[in-house]
Each structure stands twice: as C-alpha cells, then as structure tokens.
C-alpha cells in the first residue's frame, strides 16, 4: 500500500511550509520512524519521519519550495508497486482537497533557524527605522508582546552594534576625508559620463613593430633639437593618424541626430596629465602640417598646459584624440571617447619583445595601440581597417611621404 506524505500542519496559524532538506533520495529504502525530510515554517524546522516502511519512490517537492499544508511531498511504496495513479495530478494537488492520506506526524523539531522563512513581527515605526538604517530585523531582539519588535528594540540594537563596531579596533574606519571636485574635474566627470552613457564603444588592439619608427626618430631627433623641439613619438603618431583619418573620414566625424557630420580638418587632441587634471590641447590641421610644424605646435601647447596657461581655443575643436600611457608601463587599455568625437587612440609602452619573424625568434621594439570607436558611427571592420592603416604607416614610416594631404 503506497503512502503519500503531505505537508504537515504543525500550528494553528500555519498555512504553508517549505521543504528544507531531503534526508533520503528517490529509490532509497526507508524504515518506519526514520527521518526522511525536514520541513520549515516560521523559525522552526521539523523533521518528518516515515509513517511506513518502503521505498521512497517519488519526491514531489524540491528543497526551498513553499507549499500549502496538505500538499503531497513524496510517495513511499513497495519497489514494484504501481504508483502512476498517485502521480497523476499529485504535484498540483491543492491543499483544499484534503488528501485521503493522513498528514505526516510531527517528529523531531530542530532548534536551528529555518533560514529563509522568517516571520517578522514589528511595529510600523520599527520597520521604518530598520529600513532607513539598513538593519536586518530578523536579528533584532523583540521585547514587545509575543516578541514583537518595537521602536526601542531597533534603536537599542543600533546602539549596541555601534558599540561593538567601536570596540573592534580593526573595524574602526579612519574619519572620512572629503575632497570637493575642482571645476575642471567636474567638467571631466560630466563629459566622461556623457560619453560612457551615449556611445556604444568598441576597442581594438594591434601590436606595432616599431623598429623603423624608432630609427626614424633617432635619425631626426638631433635636427629637431637644433630647433629647440622635442620629437616625441606622439607627433609621429599624430601624423600617421591624420593620414589615416584623411583616407577614412568616417572616423573623423561626429553624430548629430540621424546624421554623421564629417570634419574637414583633422585636429588631434593630445591627452596631457597635469597635477590637477587631464588636459587635452589640440593641434590643429595635423594633416596639413609637416612633422616640424606638428612638433612646434605640440611642444608649445604642452608647455602652456604644464603652466596652466591654455586658452579655450587651445583645448577645443578636436576631431580625434591620442592618449599615451606608455610612460607608465601600460601595455594596452580601453580609452573612453572624448565626446562628440568618433574615436580615440590609446598608446601603450614601447618595449623590446620576442617576436617570431620568418620562423626565427627575434627581439623587436613593440608597442600596442588601442583604438576605441563609437559603434553607432562605424563598424568593427572600418575601425580595424583604420588601425591597420595606422600600424602600416608606423611600421613603414617612409609611407608618410607618399600620402594624401
């Protein structure tokens, strides 16, 4: 004779209970009086014993599931007994139907907390304070009638928690220091947030072999120095980007409503870290300038930035940005677009690395470029073509002599 164990009614006010744990699994032999599962309601866990010996043929309610009292929980029957009739509709049998089988009798009651199913009796004001202060009411000692948590209980609990926190020297936090955002910082904060929220950004990384780039700089450095200029890699990068942007103007643009607006000139901003903030002075018409002119404009702007003498005109009008973190040993990163521009190029550290060349491992100065672009304006392939072109120009810098202007 098959036996169905149902959710027991263990208290007058109990309307439902949860299966906390199965002590047996389907197919296990169970003896009469053996604990087969635990059910929980309010803060009490009950162990339910098998009313008859047999095999646990079917578990109908999984742990953590709350069901009304009287809901069938499992079927105990002989190994070969046909239980298909009992299975029909069993999982959905509502409590109101009063199954013919007797309820499981309450067996052993555990003293452990029932976990998720905690009924909290508290006054509205106590609940409000707890919510405001982020207090878990389940942990508060309630001294009202029947354990009801009153306002004073919550206030006392908060006081004691504070005292405990203060008594633990490690847990004691240093007084918080507050730093007001400078005007510049506020602008940066706002622009970066705007960029992050509005532009779906993609970053592509490519490794660039800098052997020839390095040679070019070595060769030209002294003649620049004679003119009082410092030929930084950034200027060569600017030139290469300007060339590539002229060829692929979609990256030298901005989005306005449903239109992409292409810039005529290529004005490249160069991110410069100063004590106070990150400044981005802009070298105008990079495509129309030679390397001397770019270095001359760039050096002047950087000097102004360091001295805090940049004029509004010096930091506006950019159509593309280069940000170089190589001096900090950064390999690659994901720059954030300087709005409303379409793209930004991140430059990593130039470093000697082992490379495979014609089946041989050779050491080469390598650098990683990270292009972040606005996917609303261009797709991955266009971005990839752009950064491939920049890579090509840097790896063969003589190409910079044979380009569109």
């Amino acid at each position: 004779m098959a036996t169905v164990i149902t959710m027991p009614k263990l208290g007058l006010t109990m309307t439902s209970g949860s299966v906390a744990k199965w002590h047996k699994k389907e197919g296990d032999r169970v003896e009469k009086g053996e604990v087969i599962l635990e059910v929980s309601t309010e803060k009490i866990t009950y162990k339910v014993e098998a009313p008859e010996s047999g095999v646990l043929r079917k578990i109908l309610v999984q742990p953590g599931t709350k069901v009304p009292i009287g809901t069938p929980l499992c079927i105990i029957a002989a190994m070969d007994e046909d239980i298909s009739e009992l299975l029909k509709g069993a999982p959905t049998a509502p409590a109101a139907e009063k199954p013919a089988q007797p309820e499981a009798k309450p067996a052993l009651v555990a003293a452990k907390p029932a976990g998720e199913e905690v009924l909290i009796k508290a006054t509205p004001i106590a609940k409000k304070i707890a919510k405001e202060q982020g207090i878990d009411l389940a942990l508060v000692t309630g001294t009202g009638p029947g354990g009801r948590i009153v306002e004073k209980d919550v206030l006392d609990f908060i006081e004691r928690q504070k005292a405990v926190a203060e008594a633990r020297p490690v847990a004691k936090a240093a007084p918080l220091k507050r730093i007001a955002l400078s005007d510049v910082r506020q602008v940066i904060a706002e622009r970066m947030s705007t960029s992050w929220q509005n532009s779906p950004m993609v970053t592509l990384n490519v490794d660039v072999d800098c052997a020839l780039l390095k040679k070019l700089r070595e060769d030209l450095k002294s003649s620049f120095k004679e003119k009082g200029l410092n030929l930084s890699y950034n200027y060569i990068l600017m030139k290469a980007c300007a060339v590539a942007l002229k060829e692929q103007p979609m990256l030298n643009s901005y989005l306005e409503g449903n239109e992409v607006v292409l810039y005529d000139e290529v004005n490249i901003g160069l991110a410069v870290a100063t004590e106070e903030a990150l400044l981005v002075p802009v070298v105008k018409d990079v495509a129309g300038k030679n390397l001397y002119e770019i270095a001359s404009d760039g050096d002047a702007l950087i000097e102004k930035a360091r001295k805090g003498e940049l004029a509004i005109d010096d930091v506006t009008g950019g159509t593309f940005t280069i940000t170089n973190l190589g001096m900090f040993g950064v390999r690659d990163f994901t720059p954030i677009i300087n709005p409303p521009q379409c793209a930004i190029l991140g430059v990593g550290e130039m470093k000697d690395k082992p490379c495979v060349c014609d089946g041989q491992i050779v050491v080469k100065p390598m650098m990683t470029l990270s292009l972040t672009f606005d996917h609303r304006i261009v797709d991955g392939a266009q971005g990839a073509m752009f950064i491939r072109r920049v890579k090509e120009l840097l790896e063969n810098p003589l190409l910079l002599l044979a380009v569109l202007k």
Partner: protein
Amino acid sequence: MSRRCFVVEFKEPLGYGDGLTFQERAFEKVSAGEADGILLLLEHKPVFTVGRSGGRENLLVDERVLEAYGIELYETNRGGNITYHGPGQIVAYPIFNLSKWKKDLPWYVSCLEEVVIQVLKDYNIKAGRKPKYRGVWVADKKIAAIGIAADRWITMHGFAFNVRVDKSHFELINPCGIKEFSVASLDDYVEDVDFREVVKKTREKFSLVFEAGFDEVAKEWILT
C-alpha cells in the same frame, strides 16, 4: 479545562544520559495517560550535546581538552546544533501532551520562551525574542536556548536557562552555531542570584503560562 500535571525538581546535577532516561520514562507515563504533563526541572553535569543537524564543527577544541575540563560530549537525536549544559543552568524538560493544550508547535515554543521572559521580568530584566533565532535574548545575548522534539503531540527536551553558569565553558563552542551573538547568564545582571529561587519562579511561570497547577512528585515516581 483542568489538567493533571506534575513537576519533579532534581536537587543534584544529572548526567545527560540519566536526564534522557527520565524524559523517556516520563514520556511513557504521559503516553499512557497517567498525566497530561510532567515537568522535569534539573541541572546537568557539564556536557556538550550535538544534535542531528551536526554541530561538531562548532566545537572549537579537541575532545582531550574537554576531558581536562571535565566536560562530556554527547550525541543526541534531538534537533539543533551544539549546546552546552552545566551547573548553574536551569534545564526544563516539559513532557507535555499538547493535545490537552493546543496542537501547535510554534505556539508551544513561544510559550517556553514566555516562561523565561516572565521569570526575567521578575528580576527587572527585559528579555525578548529574535525573529531569526530561537531562544530568549537579553539585548543581543542569548540567555536561554530552546530545542524541542514531539511525537504524537507529546513533547520532549525543552529549554536551558543560564542562571549562574561558568561562561568559560561556552568559550569552547559557538553556541547553537550562532557566531555573531554571545551568551548571557542571569548573574550578569543580578548580584547574588539564589538559584533555587529562580527554579521556584520558573515553576510558577510554567503554571501561569500553561494555565495548569503542577503537583510536586519525587523523582522515583517517574521510574515506577
């Protein structure tokens, strides 16, 4: 409804195993209808009991240390985690036939808590309950632990109420597996606690809360 209830006060500390024997015999008497309820009030010799839900992981020391302290380790079939019993703690084992009161275990547990809360009230101590954890709490310290069992609505086990316990023993465990709160004893709040007086008050509060008179009987009666 008048109920036939009895109380046995043990004057000497009992081993945990002996306590169980008395409970089982009392259970038989209640099952046989010789009484509606039998209340056993006693103290245990130092013992850590581990319940079915485990608890050994909350024993913080080696069993050899327990030996040095003279504390027994006892595995029980009751629910709950690790618990300490020892001198200075009132252990109440109500063997009640709940069919004569209310077939309602949450109600019953709440009544046991109420007994302790009422006793503490007599000492001007405001105690309460925590929604998440059972037992009786004074501020965030547990003063009484509760663990019950029931079969055919007849109860076993009960509560352990710290009156003047050796708290160094509690330091060897995480009581009931609860790590964030500690334990309290009545003598933390009241100087020169008279243990027998607290036992007497506990009896009175049982009568009050469970609306029944308890006739005192000798422990030998249980064994007859």
